[in-house]
């Protein structure tokens, strides 16, 4: 059987999505047998772009012109383009201060030097190219990555999740940190799939998987307000991973 040809590229990000794949220590040997990671600069040399890929997995958001080019090239050459992680899906942490003026932020770091002056407010992949599927998370869950890859073997894209973190949190019969501990838990507004990782260890969900479909922000803000969190603080928290949240 012909191996599936995969490209894995990182744009503006922390390499965590790629590392999540390399962290599948038990499965990596099988993965390397079943897939041909033809373009995977983080783990394979040289970085050669082939004509065609069965799928390109792209980590990170776009904040520099050369990233646009690479992304478009990958799109052109790939049957499926899959956004890996919350940065690629929503913008992620890098987009935390979108709207505050990129140049100002840049100067806060680099002063008056023109270094990196082509940087712009980070944008998610789908604002530039068609994205066939998203595996979100900061970092994504190994299990989801592996399922996505296994699905590709059968020509299938992952089935989207439509429930929030709370659903899985309740399935695990956790104490609810929002209702019982008055904590700013973003579970109700955040896409599930992580098995409520954080609340299961009594740590409020920080929203690392981005917004759940049909998130009811208006009512959630009411509930948070009853617990003593003002709206701007909540929106600020939400924007840690997704600049789309607005009052």
């Amino acid at each position, binding site marked *: 059987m012909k191996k599936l040809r995969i490209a894995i590229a990182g744009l503006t990000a*922390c390499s965590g999505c790629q590392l999540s794949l390399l962290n599948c220590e038990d499965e990596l040997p099988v993965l*390397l047998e079943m897939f041909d990671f033809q373009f995977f600069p983080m783990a*394979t040399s040289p970085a*050669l772009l082939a004509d065609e890929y069965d799928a390109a997995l792209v980590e990170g958001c776009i904040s520099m012109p050369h990233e646009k080019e690479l992304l478009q090239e990958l799109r052109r050459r790939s049957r499926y383009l899959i956004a890996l992680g919350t940065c690629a899906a929503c913008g992620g942490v890098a987009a935390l201060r979108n709207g505050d003026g990129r140049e100002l932020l840049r100067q806060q770091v680099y002063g008056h030097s023109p270094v990196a002056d082509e940087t712009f407010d980070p944008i998610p992949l789908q604002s530039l190219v068609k994205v066939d599927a998203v595996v979100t998370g900061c970092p994504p869950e190994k299990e989801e990555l592996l399922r996505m890859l296994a699905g590709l073997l059968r020509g299938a894209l992952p089935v989207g999740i439509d429930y929030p973190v709370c659903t899985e949190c309740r399935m695990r019969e956790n104490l609810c940190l929002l209702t019982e501990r008055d904590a700013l838990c973003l579970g109700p507004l955040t896409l599930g799939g992580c098995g409520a990782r954080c609340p299961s260890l009594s740590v409020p969900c920080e929203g*690392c998987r981005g917004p759940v479909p049909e998130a009811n922000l208006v009512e959630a803000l009411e509930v948070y307000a009853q617990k003593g969190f003002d709206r701007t603080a909540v929106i600020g928290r939400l924007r840690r991973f997704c600049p789309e949240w607005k009052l």
Partner: protein
Amino acid sequence: MNSSSKIDILTRVEGHGTVKLVREGGKVVDARLDLHESPRLFEALVVGRRFDEIPDIACRICSICSTVHKVAALQAVEQALAVDITRQTGLLRELAVQGGQIESHALHIFCLALPDYLGVNGVQELAAHEPEKLQMGLRIKKLGNLIQETVGGRAIHPFNLLIGGLGTIPEALKLQQLKEKLAAVHGDLAESCDYILDLDDLLPPLAMLPVCAVSGGPPLFGDRLITPVETVPAASAAAWLNEQVLLHTHAKVSRFDGAAPFMVGPLARLTLAMPAKYAQYFTNTSISSSLKARMIELQLAVERAQILVDQLLDDGLKNEVPVIAAPGRGQGISLMEAPRGALLHSYRFDNNGVCSAGDIITPTAINQGAIAVSLKELVIAMDGAEYEQIKKATEILIRCFDPCISCAVH
């Protein structure tokens, strides 16, 4: 881009950079590392955020070293707000950091660097040609991740490490299991040591670089930078490192006081505190033999992790809840050793505990000067060699520093 186009970036390193050969009259006279990673501007991102958000944000600088970034940021915030942590919290954090050290070193040795020594392209060919070697490395790597998961809740971006404590204290049973796994990895470790320490360096020996490392605490922790000749307390570390903005790199470059650049990382740490039994492996401390230093540190990290687990189990795990931090004005500076070298996190907070300034200095940023010096030396040593050969050697040299470019640029 045409079909099958080569993208001129460094491979098998974390992040995006290129090496450029400088030619004069058809002859390669120097090589330059360009870190053109897209900056996320973390030092600006943290501004305006409440103190309790800083560690969660800062750890996203890099995935491979997310635990140490998290801990460094936690310490800085705690210092600023005068939060004291318990012994148990300290031990657990240290354990997590050692887990990160194991994971990072194993990844570098077995997935990123070893292919150079075996003449293969990376993990893909390694899996085909030397499956046992790869799997041995992966088993060790997995242990590092297991430690991070057990303590931090997740291998990357460990959320369970909080200001003042942990979300949930790991169960004794989990630590007991860790203890068993740590013991079980010794076979693989011993075999890896034999194998890695026996490999011939790929590059000619290069002159030893001045070294610097964090000191004054348990392994990888401390409150000062030391070099063979001086000691720099944390408070003046940033000034001593003296970061400057240069045009060709998106990472600020440490200029020190204008003297020769210092090197940080495993080789620097070992040079300054070499356990006697490993001295024999370092006839010189050329960066060409950094793989060995990393292997030895991997061994040391597992040993240290064992001690920590034993201490925790001996103490008996207590169900502590995090110490509550009161928001307020303050500044905190934290120095640590990340897998690739000295790391500094420093934050200032206003009266409401909102961050007004942040400064993060990372190992690869510090190492840029050292890398430049070694590259130049390597090019001179290889005088007369083919362009492609030099290019390849420079890439190997850069990998010897195990650069973490996301960290450097952040």
